[in-house]
């Protein structure tokens, strides 16, 4: 009886952990972001919320909307 409840608890904990990881991964993937690649091979990644990213996300949203009009 005791081992059964332990197993149930373990499975619930493992399932929650996997669910959290998957949810966070999906949420991270859905975040709006900008990747800039320079001629010297360097790269900058800007995520939504930062003023630099917002400066570029606006024209990008406009571009996507125009293309799909």
């Amino acid at each position, binding site marked *: 009886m005791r081992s059964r409840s332990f197993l149930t608890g373990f499975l619930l904990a493992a399932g929650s952990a996997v669910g959290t990881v998957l949810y966070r991964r999906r949420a991270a993937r859905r975040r709006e972001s900008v990747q800039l690649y*320079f001629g010297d091979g360097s790269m900058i990644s800007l995520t939504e919320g930062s003023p630099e990213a917002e*400066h*570029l996300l606006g*024209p990008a949203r406009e*571009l996507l909307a125009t293309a*799909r009009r």
Partner: protein
Amino acid sequence: MLASDPMATAQALADLTEISSQIQSAVVFDREGTVLASTVDDERAGLLASTALELLRGAEEQGAADKEVVQLDVTLQDGSVFVVRDGDRVIAATTTTEPTAGLVFYDLKSCLRGLGQEQEKPKPKRAPAKRAAKKKNDAES
């Protein structure tokens, strides 16, 4: 001013959208924003080119003064925007959500390079005018 063959550019874009199922629309333009070819109508193509130029200029402000942005991608909730520059030519494209960025960049660069090669192809030289040379010889003799 770019000397471009509109047919070749349009064909290159048609090939691009055929090869890549992720690319929904694309426009090729020069650094001044003059549209060379597009998969959308002229009015939207002009708007896309000017907005992509605005995006590119905004991106340049993020790096050091001597650094040039050669490509960028913007991930949005309902799709992505890609811009690639090769010399004087720029290509901007929109894609479906969660595209394979590496593949899209590869396809866009291939398209731009293809256009460059198309324009670098030497025109076939005309054979020397035999008749004119013969006439000249006849006149001299």
